[in-house]
Protein backbone atom coordinates (compact mmCIF):
# COMPACT_ATOMS: atom_id res chain seq x y z
CA UNK A 1 0.00 0.00 0.00
CA UNK A 2 1.41 3.36 -0.99
CA UNK A 3 0.67 6.97 -0.22
CA UNK A 4 2.28 10.31 -0.89
CA UNK A 5 4.26 11.61 2.00
CA UNK A 6 4.15 15.28 2.79
CA UNK A 7 7.22 17.07 1.51
CA UNK A 8 8.46 14.01 -0.30
CA UNK A 9 7.92 13.85 -4.03
CA UNK A 10 8.09 10.11 -4.51
CA UNK A 11 5.86 7.30 -3.35
CA UNK A 12 6.39 6.29 0.25
CA UNK A 13 5.35 3.00 1.72
CA UNK A 14 3.44 2.57 4.95
CA UNK A 15 5.17 -0.65 5.83
CA UNK A 16 8.82 -1.45 5.37
CA UNK A 17 10.69 -4.69 5.69
CA UNK A 18 13.25 -2.81 7.73
CA UNK A 19 13.73 0.55 9.40
CA UNK A 20 17.27 1.59 10.24
CA UNK A 21 17.72 4.27 12.89
CA UNK A 22 20.83 6.37 12.28
CA UNK A 23 22.73 6.93 9.01
CA UNK A 24 26.26 6.50 10.35
CA UNK A 25 28.64 3.73 9.23
CA UNK A 26 26.61 0.97 10.96
CA UNK A 27 23.17 2.15 9.82
CA UNK A 28 24.12 2.89 6.22
CA UNK A 29 25.93 -0.45 5.92
CA UNK A 30 22.84 -2.26 7.23
CA UNK A 31 20.56 -0.32 4.86
CA UNK A 32 22.84 -0.94 1.89
CA UNK A 33 23.07 -4.68 2.59
CA UNK A 34 19.30 -5.09 2.94
CA UNK A 35 18.49 -2.94 -0.11
CA UNK A 36 20.91 -5.00 -2.20
CA UNK A 37 19.11 -8.15 -1.11
CA UNK A 38 15.77 -6.71 -2.20
CA UNK A 39 14.24 -5.64 1.10
CA UNK A 40 12.29 -2.38 1.36
CA UNK A 41 14.34 -0.19 3.67
CA UNK A 42 13.78 3.14 5.37
CA UNK A 43 16.93 4.81 6.70
CA UNK A 44 16.18 7.49 9.29
CA UNK A 45 18.70 10.18 10.27
CA UNK A 46 18.02 12.87 12.83
CA UNK A 47 20.57 15.33 11.38
CA UNK A 48 19.91 17.63 8.44
CA UNK A 49 22.18 15.32 6.42
CA UNK A 50 24.09 12.15 7.29
CA UNK A 51 27.35 13.14 8.97
CA UNK A 52 26.08 16.52 10.14
CA UNK A 53 25.70 15.53 13.80
CA UNK A 54 28.34 14.40 16.25
CA UNK A 55 30.77 12.51 14.06
CA UNK A 56 34.22 11.39 14.81
CA UNK A 57 36.16 8.28 13.79
CA UNK A 58 39.02 9.60 11.69
CA UNK A 59 40.08 6.25 10.25
CA UNK A 60 38.42 3.96 7.71
CA UNK A 61 39.83 0.45 7.47
CA UNK A 62 40.12 -0.81 3.95
CA UNK A 63 39.32 -4.48 4.44
CA UNK A 64 36.10 -3.85 6.36
CA UNK A 65 34.79 -1.22 3.95
CA UNK A 66 35.66 -3.45 0.99
CA UNK A 67 33.21 -5.97 2.43
CA UNK A 68 30.50 -3.31 2.12
CA UNK A 69 31.59 -1.37 -0.97
CA UNK A 70 34.20 -3.19 -3.11
CA UNK A 71 36.94 -0.91 -4.47
CA UNK A 72 35.42 1.99 -2.55
CA UNK A 73 38.53 4.13 -3.08
CA UNK A 74 37.50 4.80 -6.66
CA UNK A 75 34.80 7.26 -5.57
CA UNK A 76 34.70 7.56 -1.75
CA UNK A 77 35.56 10.95 -0.27
CA UNK A 78 38.80 9.91 1.43
CA UNK A 79 41.47 12.21 2.79
CA UNK A 80 44.79 10.31 2.70
CA UNK A 81 45.89 6.67 2.59
CA UNK A 82 47.80 5.98 5.77
CA UNK A 83 51.34 4.69 5.33
CA UNK A 84 52.77 5.76 8.66
CA UNK A 85 51.76 5.12 12.28
CA UNK A 86 53.55 6.56 15.27
CA UNK A 87 53.22 6.32 19.02
CA UNK A 88 54.73 9.10 21.09
CA UNK A 89 55.44 8.72 24.80
CA UNK A 90 55.47 12.37 25.74
CA UNK A 91 56.83 14.44 28.56
CA UNK A 92 56.97 18.21 28.98
CA UNK A 93 59.92 18.93 26.70
CA UNK A 94 60.50 15.60 24.97
CA UNK A 95 58.97 12.61 23.26
CA UNK A 96 60.10 9.03 22.72
CA UNK A 97 58.74 8.18 19.29
CA UNK A 98 58.06 4.72 17.90
CA UNK A 99 56.95 4.61 14.34
CA UNK A 100 56.46 2.46 11.29
CA UNK A 101 56.21 3.64 7.71
CA UNK A 102 55.27 1.09 5.08
CA UNK A 103 54.94 2.34 1.52
CA UNK A 104 53.28 -0.91 0.43
CA UNK A 105 50.18 0.45 2.15
CA UNK A 106 50.10 3.05 -0.62
CA UNK A 107 48.83 0.52 -3.19
CA UNK A 108 45.38 -1.00 -3.67
CA UNK A 109 43.73 -2.45 -1.64
CA UNK A 110 45.53 -0.07 0.76
CA UNK A 111 45.40 -0.48 4.52
CA UNK A 112 43.45 2.40 6.02
CA UNK A 113 42.46 5.95 5.19
CA UNK A 114 41.92 9.16 7.09
CA UNK A 115 38.44 10.58 6.46
CA UNK A 116 36.31 13.50 7.54
CA UNK A 117 33.01 11.95 8.51
CA UNK A 118 31.11 15.05 7.47
CA UNK A 119 32.03 14.00 3.92
CA UNK A 120 32.21 10.23 4.30
CA UNK A 121 28.84 9.51 5.92
CA UNK A 122 26.71 11.14 3.17
CA UNK A 123 28.64 9.12 0.58
CA UNK A 124 27.93 5.80 2.33
CA UNK A 125 24.26 6.71 2.88
CA UNK A 126 24.02 7.55 -0.83
CA UNK A 127 25.30 4.04 -1.64
CA UNK A 128 22.34 2.67 0.32
CA UNK A 129 19.96 5.02 -1.52
CA UNK A 130 21.43 3.99 -4.89
CA UNK A 131 20.72 0.38 -3.96
CA UNK A 132 17.06 1.25 -3.30
CA UNK A 133 16.88 2.30 0.35
CA UNK A 134 14.86 5.38 1.20
CA UNK A 135 16.61 8.02 3.28
CA UNK A 136 14.71 10.50 5.46
CA UNK A 137 16.80 13.15 7.18
CA UNK A 138 15.78 15.53 10.00
CA UNK A 139 13.83 12.56 11.36
CA UNK A 140 14.30 11.91 15.03
CA UNK A 141 12.94 8.61 16.36
CA UNK A 142 11.33 9.10 19.77
CA UNK A 143 10.67 5.46 20.56
CA UNK A 144 10.18 1.99 19.16
CA UNK A 145 6.60 0.75 18.72
CA UNK A 146 5.90 -2.69 20.16
CA UNK A 147 3.13 -5.21 19.97
CA UNK A 148 3.65 -7.49 22.93
CA UNK A 149 7.34 -8.32 22.81
CA UNK A 150 7.65 -7.77 19.06
CA UNK A 151 9.04 -4.45 17.84
CA UNK A 152 6.75 -3.44 14.99
CA UNK A 153 8.06 -0.03 13.99
CA UNK A 154 9.11 3.38 15.24
CA UNK A 155 7.45 6.54 16.44
CA UNK A 156 9.04 9.82 15.31
CA UNK A 157 9.38 12.89 17.52
CA UNK A 158 6.60 14.40 15.40
CA UNK A 159 4.22 11.66 16.57
CA UNK A 160 4.16 9.86 13.22
CA UNK A 161 4.50 6.08 13.42
CA UNK A 162 6.02 3.90 10.72
CA UNK A 163 5.69 0.11 10.62
CA UNK A 164 8.41 -2.39 9.82
CA UNK A 165 9.07 -6.09 10.19
CA UNK A 166 12.44 -5.39 11.77
CA UNK A 167 14.13 -2.31 13.26
CA UNK A 168 17.92 -1.97 13.25
CA UNK A 169 19.13 0.41 15.93
CA UNK A 170 22.31 2.20 14.90
CA UNK A 171 21.67 5.22 17.07
CA UNK A 172 25.17 5.69 18.37
CA UNK A 173 27.06 5.53 21.63
CA UNK A 174 24.20 6.90 23.76
CA UNK A 175 21.61 4.58 22.15
CA UNK A 176 18.59 6.05 23.88
CA UNK A 177 16.39 3.55 22.02
CA UNK A 178 18.47 0.51 23.00
CA UNK A 179 18.27 1.53 26.64
CA UNK A 180 14.54 2.16 26.42
CA UNK A 181 14.02 -1.36 25.09
CA UNK A 182 16.11 -2.74 27.94
CA UNK A 183 18.69 -4.15 25.54
CA UNK A 184 21.39 -1.96 27.05
CA UNK A 185 22.09 -1.16 30.65
CA UNK A 186 23.18 2.16 32.09
CA UNK A 187 26.47 3.43 30.67
CA UNK A 188 28.96 4.24 33.42
CA UNK A 189 31.62 6.96 33.14
CA UNK A 190 34.40 4.34 33.35
CA UNK A 191 33.04 2.63 30.23
CA UNK A 192 33.40 5.55 27.81
CA UNK A 193 36.19 7.82 26.67
CA UNK A 194 35.39 11.45 26.02
CA UNK A 195 37.25 13.09 23.14
CA UNK A 196 37.38 16.55 21.64
CA UNK A 197 38.76 17.30 18.22
CA UNK A 198 39.84 20.37 16.35
CA UNK A 199 40.13 20.39 12.58
CA UNK A 200 42.97 22.66 11.49
CA UNK A 201 43.34 23.67 7.87
CA UNK A 202 46.83 23.66 6.34
CA UNK A 203 48.10 23.53 2.73
CA UNK A 204 48.71 19.91 1.57
CA UNK A 205 52.36 20.62 0.79
CA UNK A 206 53.01 21.87 4.32
CA UNK A 207 51.45 18.71 5.75
CA UNK A 208 53.59 16.56 3.43
CA UNK A 209 56.78 18.31 4.56
CA UNK A 210 56.03 18.24 8.29
CA UNK A 211 54.94 14.61 8.39
CA UNK A 212 57.45 13.33 5.80
CA UNK A 213 54.79 12.34 3.30
CA UNK A 214 54.44 12.48 -0.43
CA UNK A 215 51.35 13.10 -2.46
CA UNK A 216 48.28 11.34 -1.07
CA UNK A 217 50.13 9.57 1.76
CA UNK A 218 48.97 10.06 5.33
CA UNK A 219 50.21 9.56 8.88
CA UNK A 220 48.58 9.00 12.26
CA UNK A 221 50.30 9.99 15.50
CA UNK A 222 49.02 8.60 18.79
CA UNK A 223 50.38 10.32 21.88
CA UNK A 224 50.27 9.29 25.54
CA UNK A 225 51.64 10.84 28.71
CA UNK A 226 51.72 14.61 28.51
CA UNK A 227 48.49 15.18 26.47
CA UNK A 228 46.06 13.99 29.13
CA UNK A 229 47.39 15.82 32.20
CA UNK A 230 47.96 12.59 34.17
CA UNK A 231 44.61 11.00 33.29
CA UNK A 232 44.23 7.74 31.33
CA UNK A 233 43.70 8.64 27.72
CA UNK A 234 45.56 9.89 24.70
CA UNK A 235 46.12 12.60 22.19
CA UNK A 236 46.56 12.23 18.48
CA UNK A 237 47.02 13.90 15.13
CA UNK A 238 45.49 12.58 11.92
CA UNK A 239 46.65 13.97 8.59
CA UNK A 240 43.81 14.78 6.21
CA UNK A 241 44.20 16.03 2.65
CA UNK A 242 44.47 19.72 3.55
CA UNK A 243 43.78 19.68 7.26
CA UNK A 244 44.85 17.99 10.49
CA UNK A 245 42.51 16.44 13.03
CA UNK A 246 43.90 17.09 16.49
CA UNK A 247 42.32 14.93 19.14
CA UNK A 248 42.61 14.50 22.88
CA UNK A 249 40.52 12.67 25.43
CA UNK A 250 40.40 10.47 28.50
CA UNK A 251 38.09 8.04 30.20
CA UNK A 252 35.11 10.07 31.38
CA UNK A 253 35.44 8.89 34.99
CA UNK A 254 39.06 10.09 34.97
CA UNK A 255 37.93 13.48 33.71
CA UNK A 256 35.32 13.65 36.46
CA UNK A 257 37.61 12.50 39.28
CA UNK A 258 40.58 14.60 38.19
CA UNK A 259 38.45 17.67 37.44
CA UNK A 260 39.59 18.00 33.86
CA UNK A 261 37.90 20.01 31.16
CA UNK A 262 38.26 18.47 27.69
CA UNK A 263 38.77 21.84 26.06
CA UNK A 264 41.51 22.72 28.55
CA UNK A 265 43.21 19.45 27.62
CA UNK A 266 43.01 20.31 23.93
CA UNK A 267 44.37 23.82 24.37
CA UNK A 268 47.22 22.49 26.53
CA UNK A 269 48.01 19.69 24.09
CA UNK A 270 48.25 22.11 21.17
CA UNK A 271 50.71 24.24 23.14
CA UNK A 272 53.23 21.42 23.61
CA UNK A 273 56.41 22.60 21.83
CA UNK A 274 56.61 19.43 19.69
CA UNK A 275 52.92 19.59 18.75
CA UNK A 276 52.79 23.33 18.22
CA UNK A 277 55.31 23.16 15.39
CA UNK A 278 53.23 20.56 13.55
CA UNK A 279 50.16 22.82 13.66
CA UNK A 280 51.85 26.19 13.14
CA UNK A 281 50.14 28.54 10.71
CA UNK A 282 47.00 26.41 10.54
CA UNK A 283 43.50 27.79 10.72
CA UNK A 284 40.92 26.09 12.95
CA UNK A 285 37.76 25.29 11.01
CA UNK A 286 35.95 22.80 13.24
CA UNK A 287 35.46 21.75 16.87
CA UNK A 288 33.79 18.44 17.73
CA UNK A 289 33.30 16.16 20.65
CA UNK A 290 32.40 12.53 20.92
CA UNK A 291 32.26 9.64 23.33
CA UNK A 292 33.64 6.22 22.47
CA UNK A 293 32.13 3.18 24.19
CA UNK A 294 35.04 1.35 25.82
CA UNK A 295 33.12 -0.99 28.05
CA UNK A 296 33.77 -3.84 25.68
CA UNK A 297 32.60 -7.31 26.47
CA UNK A 298 31.04 -6.71 29.86
CA UNK A 299 28.98 -3.79 28.49
CA UNK A 300 27.84 -5.61 25.39
CA UNK A 301 24.09 -5.29 25.07
CA UNK A 302 21.58 -7.92 24.22
CA UNK A 303 22.24 -7.73 20.48
CA UNK A 304 18.79 -8.74 19.27
CA UNK A 305 15.20 -9.14 20.35
CA UNK A 306 11.87 -9.81 18.67
CA UNK A 307 11.91 -7.61 15.58
CA UNK A 308 15.00 -5.66 16.57
CA UNK A 309 18.81 -5.70 16.29
CA UNK A 310 21.40 -3.26 17.54
CA UNK A 311 24.67 -2.38 15.73
CA UNK A 312 27.77 -0.22 15.82
CA UNK A 313 28.61 2.10 18.74
CA UNK A 314 25.08 1.49 20.06
CA UNK A 315 26.12 -2.15 20.49
CA UNK A 316 29.48 -1.17 22.08
CA UNK A 317 31.32 -2.55 19.06
CA UNK A 318 34.69 -1.00 19.71
CA UNK A 319 38.03 -2.75 20.09
CA UNK A 320 41.22 -0.79 20.64
CA UNK A 321 41.45 1.74 17.84
CA UNK A 322 38.77 -0.01 15.83
CA UNK A 323 35.24 1.38 15.76
CA UNK A 324 34.03 2.50 12.34
CA UNK A 325 35.01 -0.82 10.80
CA UNK A 326 33.22 -2.85 13.46
CA UNK A 327 30.23 -0.56 12.97
CA UNK A 328 30.17 -1.37 9.27
CA UNK A 329 30.68 -5.08 9.85
CA UNK A 330 27.91 -5.35 12.46
CA UNK A 331 25.64 -3.26 10.21
CA UNK A 332 26.27 -5.72 7.41
CA UNK A 333 25.66 -8.71 9.71
CA UNK A 334 22.36 -7.17 10.84
CA UNK A 335 21.39 -6.59 7.21
CA UNK A 336 22.19 -10.18 6.23
CA UNK A 337 20.26 -11.50 9.22
CA UNK A 338 17.21 -9.41 8.28
CA UNK A 339 17.30 -10.76 4.73
CA UNK A 340 17.45 -14.30 6.08
CA UNK A 341 14.53 -13.52 8.40
CA UNK A 342 12.44 -12.22 5.53
CA UNK A 343 13.23 -15.35 3.53
CA UNK A 344 11.97 -17.38 6.51
CA UNK A 345 9.00 -15.07 7.09
CA UNK A 346 10.07 -14.96 10.70
CA UNK A 347 11.35 -11.90 12.55
CA UNK A 348 11.23 -13.42 16.02
CA UNK A 349 14.19 -13.37 18.38
CA UNK A 350 14.82 -17.01 17.63
CA UNK A 351 15.40 -16.24 13.97
CA UNK A 352 17.40 -13.06 14.66
CA UNK A 353 19.77 -15.00 16.95
CA UNK A 354 21.76 -15.59 13.75
CA UNK A 355 23.00 -12.02 14.17
CA UNK A 356 24.70 -12.80 17.45
CA UNK A 357 26.22 -15.97 15.99
CA UNK A 358 27.80 -13.96 13.19
CA UNK A 359 29.27 -11.50 15.68
CA UNK A 360 30.47 -14.22 18.07
CA UNK A 361 32.32 -15.92 15.23
CA UNK A 362 33.96 -12.72 13.98
CA UNK A 363 37.65 -11.79 14.30
CA UNK A 364 36.80 -8.66 16.25
CA UNK A 365 34.81 -10.41 18.94
CA UNK A 366 37.91 -12.36 19.96
CA UNK A 367 39.74 -9.04 20.34
CA UNK A 368 36.89 -7.48 22.31
CA UNK A 369 36.91 -10.42 24.72
CA UNK A 370 40.70 -10.26 25.09
CA UNK A 371 40.65 -6.47 25.46
CA UNK A 372 39.00 -6.73 28.85
CA UNK A 373 42.23 -7.86 30.47
CA UNK A 374 44.13 -4.71 29.53
CA UNK A 375 41.31 -2.32 30.32
CA UNK A 376 41.10 -3.93 33.75
CA UNK A 377 44.75 -3.20 34.36
CA UNK A 378 44.17 0.49 33.69
CA UNK A 379 41.36 0.76 36.16
CA UNK A 380 43.66 -0.68 38.84
CA UNK A 381 46.69 1.43 37.86
CA UNK A 382 45.36 4.65 36.34
CA UNK A 383 48.79 6.31 36.53
CA UNK A 384 50.60 3.71 34.42
CA UNK A 385 50.68 5.62 31.10
CA UNK A 386 51.92 8.67 32.90
CA UNK A 387 54.70 6.81 34.68
CA UNK A 388 55.80 4.91 31.61
CA UNK A 389 56.02 8.09 29.53
CA UNK A 390 58.02 9.81 32.20
CA UNK A 391 60.35 6.83 32.63
CA UNK A 392 60.93 6.50 28.89
CA UNK A 393 61.72 10.18 28.48
CA UNK A 394 64.06 10.35 31.45
CA UNK A 395 65.92 7.29 30.27
CA UNK A 396 66.18 8.64 26.74
CA UNK A 397 67.51 11.98 27.95
CA UNK A 398 70.23 10.13 29.87
CA UNK A 399 70.94 7.70 27.06
CA UNK A 400 71.61 10.38 24.46
CA UNK A 401 73.26 12.82 26.83
CA UNK A 402 76.95 13.57 26.31
CA UNK A 403 78.24 13.41 29.86
CA UNK A 404 81.55 12.88 31.62
CA UNK A 405 80.48 9.41 32.79
CA UNK A 406 81.70 5.97 31.79
CA UNK A 407 79.17 3.74 30.05
CA UNK A 408 78.92 1.66 33.21
CA UNK A 409 78.24 4.70 35.38
CA UNK A 410 75.69 5.94 32.91
CA UNK A 411 73.82 2.62 32.95
CA UNK A 412 73.79 2.59 36.74
CA UNK A 413 72.48 6.11 36.73
CA UNK A 414 69.67 5.25 34.32
CA UNK A 415 68.61 2.19 36.30
CA UNK A 416 68.70 4.18 39.54
CA UNK A 417 66.50 6.85 38.07
CA UNK A 418 63.94 4.29 36.96
CA UNK A 419 64.01 2.65 40.38
CA UNK A 420 63.35 6.02 41.96
CA UNK A 421 60.14 6.26 39.96
CA UNK A 422 58.66 2.94 41.07
CA UNK A 423 59.60 -0.76 41.35
CA UNK A 424 61.24 -1.96 38.12
CA UNK A 425 58.93 -4.93 37.67
CA UNK A 426 55.92 -2.68 37.63
CA UNK A 427 57.51 -0.41 35.01
CA UNK A 428 58.14 -3.35 32.70
CA UNK A 429 54.62 -4.66 33.25
CA UNK A 430 53.23 -1.23 32.49
CA UNK A 431 55.24 -0.85 29.32
CA UNK A 432 53.83 -4.17 28.12
CA UNK A 433 50.25 -3.34 29.15
CA UNK A 434 50.47 0.15 27.66
CA UNK A 435 51.70 -1.15 24.32
CA UNK A 436 49.00 -3.83 24.30
CA UNK A 437 46.31 -1.35 25.24
CA UNK A 438 47.17 1.07 22.45
CA UNK A 439 47.56 -1.86 20.07
CA UNK A 440 51.20 -1.32 19.30
CA UNK A 441 52.04 -4.97 20.03
Amino acid at each position, binding site marked *: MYRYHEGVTHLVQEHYDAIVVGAGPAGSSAALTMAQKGLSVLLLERGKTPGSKVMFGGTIYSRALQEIVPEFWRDAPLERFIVSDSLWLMDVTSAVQMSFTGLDYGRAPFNKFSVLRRNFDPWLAQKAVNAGAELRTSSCVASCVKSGRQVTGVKLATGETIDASVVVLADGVSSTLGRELGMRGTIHPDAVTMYVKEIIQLPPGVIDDRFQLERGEGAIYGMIGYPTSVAVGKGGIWTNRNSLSVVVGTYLDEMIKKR*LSPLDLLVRFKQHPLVRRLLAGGKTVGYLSHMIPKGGYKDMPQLYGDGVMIAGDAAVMVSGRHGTDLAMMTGKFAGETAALAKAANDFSRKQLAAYKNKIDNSWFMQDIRAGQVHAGYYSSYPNSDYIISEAANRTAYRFFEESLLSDRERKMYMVQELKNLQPMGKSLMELYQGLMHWRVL
Partner: protein
Amino acid sequence: MDRWLDEFSDPLQWVSIDPPAESHIKVKNEKNCQKCDMRPCTYICPAQVYRWDEAAKHLNVSYQRCIECGACVIACPQNIGLAWPGEGKGVYYQLPAELSGGAINV
Protein backbone atom coordinates in the same frame (compact mmCIF):
# COMPACT_ATOMS: atom_id res chain seq x y z
CA MET B 1 34.06 28.85 32.77
CA ASP B 2 35.01 32.51 32.78
CA ARG B 3 38.68 31.63 32.73
CA TRP B 4 37.97 29.37 29.82
CA LEU B 5 36.31 32.06 27.77
CA ASP B 6 38.81 34.73 28.72
CA GLU B 7 41.94 32.82 27.92
CA PHE B 8 40.77 30.87 24.91
CA SER B 9 38.43 31.90 22.20
CA ASP B 10 35.05 30.20 22.36
CA PRO B 11 35.32 27.02 20.26
CA LEU B 12 31.64 27.24 19.40
CA GLN B 13 32.62 29.76 16.75
CA TRP B 14 33.64 26.68 14.71
CA VAL B 15 30.33 24.91 15.23
CA SER B 16 26.92 25.53 13.62
CA ILE B 17 23.91 25.12 15.89
CA ASP B 18 20.24 25.59 15.08
CA PRO B 19 18.84 25.34 18.62
CA PRO B 20 15.42 23.81 19.23
CA ALA B 21 12.67 26.19 20.38
CA GLU B 22 12.62 24.64 23.85
CA SER B 23 15.40 23.18 25.94
CA HIS B 24 16.14 19.52 25.22
CA ILE B 25 18.08 19.35 28.51
CA LYS B 26 16.24 19.01 31.78
CA VAL B 27 17.65 19.31 35.28
CA LYS B 28 15.48 16.91 37.23
CA ASN B 29 15.85 18.45 40.68
CA GLU B 30 17.82 21.64 41.28
CA LYS B 31 18.23 20.80 44.97
CA ASN B 32 20.52 17.93 44.01
CA CYS B 33 22.84 20.42 42.28
CA GLN B 34 23.06 22.49 45.45
CA LYS B 35 24.16 19.41 47.37
CA CYS B 36 26.43 18.14 44.58
CA ASP B 37 30.05 17.95 45.62
CA MET B 38 32.01 18.31 42.36
CA ARG B 39 29.39 19.41 39.80
CA PRO B 40 31.20 17.57 36.98
CA CYS B 41 28.74 18.93 34.40
CA THR B 42 30.35 22.35 34.81
CA TYR B 43 33.76 21.13 33.61
CA ILE B 44 33.36 17.95 31.56
CA CYS B 45 30.96 19.52 29.03
CA PRO B 46 33.04 20.34 25.91
CA ALA B 47 30.67 23.19 25.03
CA GLN B 48 30.33 24.59 28.58
CA VAL B 49 26.56 24.32 28.59
CA TYR B 50 26.41 24.18 32.39
CA ARG B 51 27.44 27.03 34.68
CA TRP B 52 26.98 27.18 38.41
CA ASP B 53 25.79 30.51 39.80
CA GLU B 54 27.07 30.46 43.37
CA ALA B 55 25.18 33.61 44.45
CA ALA B 56 21.82 32.34 43.24
CA LYS B 57 22.65 28.65 44.01
CA HIS B 58 21.38 27.92 40.56
CA LEU B 59 22.61 25.81 37.64
CA ASN B 60 22.40 27.79 34.40
CA VAL B 61 21.84 25.55 31.39
CA SER B 62 22.66 27.13 28.02
CA TYR B 63 21.11 24.36 25.95
CA GLN B 64 21.67 26.47 22.83
CA ARG B 65 25.38 25.67 23.13
CA CYS B 66 24.91 21.88 23.24
CA ILE B 67 26.88 19.88 20.66
CA GLU B 68 25.11 16.64 21.60
CA CYS B 69 27.96 14.40 22.75
CA GLY B 70 25.86 12.99 25.60
CA ALA B 71 28.63 13.09 28.23
CA CYS B 72 26.57 15.02 30.79
CA VAL B 73 23.92 12.31 31.10
CA ILE B 74 26.56 9.66 31.67
CA ALA B 75 28.35 11.84 34.23
CA CYS B 76 25.10 12.71 36.01
CA PRO B 77 22.33 10.22 35.11
CA GLN B 78 20.51 10.94 38.36
CA ASN B 79 19.86 14.61 37.66
CA ILE B 80 20.30 15.43 33.96
CA GLY B 81 17.77 14.39 31.32
CA LEU B 82 18.62 14.75 27.65
CA ALA B 83 16.33 14.23 24.64
CA TRP B 84 17.85 14.64 21.19
CA PRO B 85 16.52 17.73 19.40
CA GLY B 86 14.02 16.66 16.72
CA GLU B 87 13.25 18.02 13.25
CA GLY B 88 16.91 18.42 12.26
CA LYS B 89 17.46 20.96 15.03
CA GLY B 90 20.57 21.21 17.15
CA VAL B 91 24.18 20.93 16.07
CA TYR B 92 25.06 20.50 12.39
CA TYR B 93 28.65 20.48 11.37
CA GLN B 94 29.77 22.23 8.25
CA LEU B 95 33.21 22.31 6.71
CA PRO B 96 34.72 24.96 4.43
CA ALA B 97 34.39 24.21 0.70
CA GLU B 98 38.14 23.44 0.50
CA LEU B 99 37.60 20.51 2.85
CA SER B 100 34.66 19.06 0.99
CA GLY B 101 36.57 15.95 -0.02
CA GLY B 102 36.31 14.03 -3.29
CA ALA B 103 37.92 10.81 -4.39
CA ILE B 104 41.67 10.45 -4.04
CA ASN B 105 43.92 10.03 -7.06
CA VAL B 106 45.18 6.47 -7.09
